[in-house]
């Protein structure tokens, strides 16, 4: 039974990267904004420095079924609680490159974006100024046009120096990693202490996440976050032309309805698609915003492989940002450089690591156990070097989010995420791994090994485009079918590029929020 009924100007589903930008912009413009967040309330006090406690920041909602030979790894990539996945993200914020936006036209692969880099650049620059990025734009010789970073780069610790030498010996270039991490006090937030706890959340506010920047701005302007509010259905008008609001369940399981002039669906890639599909009604029998039949389609994830080496010298692997210290994108701008392969890739170099955790030191050598384990760990905590490949995925229609026959506790069908890797992408990864092994050899690693290939970041499923028959939204994330429904987040990406998506998510959200306010219904 529905127990509450109220109406606001803007209703945002999800309080992460994209939703927080919409909320900040709209509330600053005087709109009454409510964000419905499925996860619990989180404050900086909850960001305990522990790989164990950090697990509370990852997905804790309805189970997501996964299939395919290259699964997206939903639960590791998705967040849980105020701020969404930004609360455990590493703050690695490179920009997409100019050649990421027209991959179908230029290379016959994937989909074209409905906008060019030049149109997005001002929003990258403005977000960068607000959040405060550290880096060195000149050293990033592959970087597309953009303002210089407002802060100097993070320091380079032992493993970073060793690995950089390896790249250099192969005539490859490294630059400071662009990070949404303060290296000096910036806009009232302190500088980083480089103690490697980024993915447990940054309670001092040095890392730019939703709570430290845009969500804080939104709440100062009057926006309200309702936690443990699980949206179960989007509601349309009788004629199906407008979205009227949502139905959600609160912590006690009771049902509520909240109505709004505009709804922004910013619940991350998989849940966005799931909610649209699960909200089918007589006017939208295939799901909302789905006249194209493409809701859920073109699901993507960056193929990632970490390479590890043990060095004679001490490498200080506990120090620095979890995301890394340096970057290499030498292989980025020629997507056809490798025979039978397609795509760009980058190396993120010298990630801080802890002994435990899915990406921790012990689990990167799962073959070692028993009496050999402790000696390995004792050596690795002082001598390990890490570098992580991020490769491009190709938008393939058959990779998808669909509804399962099983349902969650509220009766909503579960999501099933199906993702297989295309052969050109697999060939790219194979090439890049060989390159990475050569770098570790050149760097002087005494022994080296690779981790398993996994999915990093989740994109697509509600792709933007020019043609309503070939996409779900326009370039602002506005549904082609329902004007007052916006979709936000990396699910909009028609292509993955090979860079971490959070910076682009913010830039797209700022551009979309301003368009929404200009065209307020």
């Amino acid at each position, binding site marked *: 039974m529905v127990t509450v009924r109220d109406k606001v100007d803007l209703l945002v589903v999800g309080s992460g990267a994209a939703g927080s930008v919409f909320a900040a912009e709209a509330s600053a413009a005087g709109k009454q904004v409510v964000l419905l967040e499925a996860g619990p309330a989180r404050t900086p006090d909850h960001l305990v420095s522990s790989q*164990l406690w950090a697990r509370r920041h990852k997905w804790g909602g309805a189970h997501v079924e996964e299939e395919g030979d290259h699964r997206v790894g939903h639960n590791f990539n998705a967040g849980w609680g105020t701020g969404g996945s930004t609360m455990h993200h590493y703050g690695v914020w490179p920009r997409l490159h100019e050649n990421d936006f027209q991959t179908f036209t230029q290379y016959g692969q994937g989909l074209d974006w409905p906008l060019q880099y030049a149109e997005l650049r001002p929003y990258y620059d403005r977000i960068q100024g607000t959040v405060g990025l550290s880096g060195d734009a000149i050293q990033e010789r592959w970087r597309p046009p953009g303002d210089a970073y407002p802060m100097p780069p993070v320091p380079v610790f032992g493993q970073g120096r060793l690995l950089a030498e390896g790249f250099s010996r192969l005539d490859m270039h490294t630059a400071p990693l662009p990070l949404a991490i303060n290296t000096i006090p910036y806009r009232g937030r302190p500088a980083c202490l480089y103690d490697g706890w980024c993915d447990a959340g940054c309670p001092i506010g040095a890392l730019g996440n939703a709570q430290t920047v845009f969500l804080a701005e939104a709440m100062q302007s009057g926006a309200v976050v309702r936690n443990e509010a699980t949206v179960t259905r989007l509601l349309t008008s009788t004629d199906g032309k407008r979205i009227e609001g949502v139905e959600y369940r609160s912590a006690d399981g009771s049902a509520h309805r909240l109505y709004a002039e505009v709804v922004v669906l910013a619940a991350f890639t998989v849940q966005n698609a799931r909610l649209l599909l699960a909200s089918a009604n007589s006017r939208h029998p295939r799901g909302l915003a789905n006249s194209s039949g493409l809701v859920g389609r073109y699901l993507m994830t960056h193929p990632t492989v970490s390479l590890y080496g043990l060095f004679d010298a001490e490498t200080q692997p506990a120090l620095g940002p979890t995301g890394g210290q340096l970057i290499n994108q030498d292989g980025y701008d020629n997507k056809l450089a490798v025979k039978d392969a397609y795509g760009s890739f980058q190396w993120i170099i010298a990630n801080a690591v802890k002994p435990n955790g899915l990406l921790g030191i012990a689990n990167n050598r799962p073959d070692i156990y*028993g009496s050999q384990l402790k000696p390995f760990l004792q050596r690795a905590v002082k001598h390990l070097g890490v570098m992580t490949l991020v490769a491009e995925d190709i938008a393939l229609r058959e990779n998808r989010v669909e509804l399962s026959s099983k349902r969650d506790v509220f009766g909503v069908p579960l999501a099933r995420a199906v993702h297989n890797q295309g052969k050109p992408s697999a060939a790219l990864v194979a090439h890049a791994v060989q390159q990475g092994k050569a770098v570790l050899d050149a760097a002087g690693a005494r022994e080296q090994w690779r981790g398993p290939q996994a999915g990093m970041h989740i994109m697509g499923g509600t792709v933007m485009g020019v043609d309503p028959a070939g996409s779900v939204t326009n370039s602002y994330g506005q549904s082609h079918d329902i004007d007052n429904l916006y979709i936000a987040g990396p699910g909009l990406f028609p292509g993955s590029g090979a860079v971490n998506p959070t910076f682009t998510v913010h830039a797209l959200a700022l551009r979309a929020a301003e368009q929404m306010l200009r065209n307020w219904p």
Partner: protein
Amino acid sequence: MEPLQQRRRFLKALLLAYPLVSGALLLSPAEARQRKLPLSVLDAEEAADLETVIEALVPGSAGAGAVHFIDYQLARPSADSLLMLRYLGVAEPHVNFYRSGLMALARHSIERYGKRPAELPAPALDQLITDLITDDTQDWAGPPASFLYFVWRSDGIDVTYGTEDGMAVLDTPYMAHIRPEQVW
């Protein structure tokens, strides 16, 4: 005083706090095991088998209270669980994963070696671990054996080396912003 030094001043309290009597007394999993606190989810045979296998994978994990840690996490709502399993796409409730895995392990151990894992002599236990790693498990009716190996080994590492005490054993700095000292 430098920030890192300031934080190191706080490295002495308990990490793996275990609740007893409405949180009035906090125990680490190791202390919970020493005091033989009752388990909530796992029965005695399951606990004994699990402890035996995890100790074989991660020496020291039994004394660190791995089974009490796992049992407590399985007893709480899955959204609050601190088990690494929540990352790995396994359907809830996670107790089903552990229980079905332990059942398959015990059955395999008895059929191939004549005894439950907790009763095996060291050479047979070594061979049982090899069976897990290599999925050499005929008629296995549970989660994939090599996956169980990965998860149980990770659990053991969490309790043994994922704490302030554990990192101290490895001589690597913990450097907490906020130390984990709340009741689980």
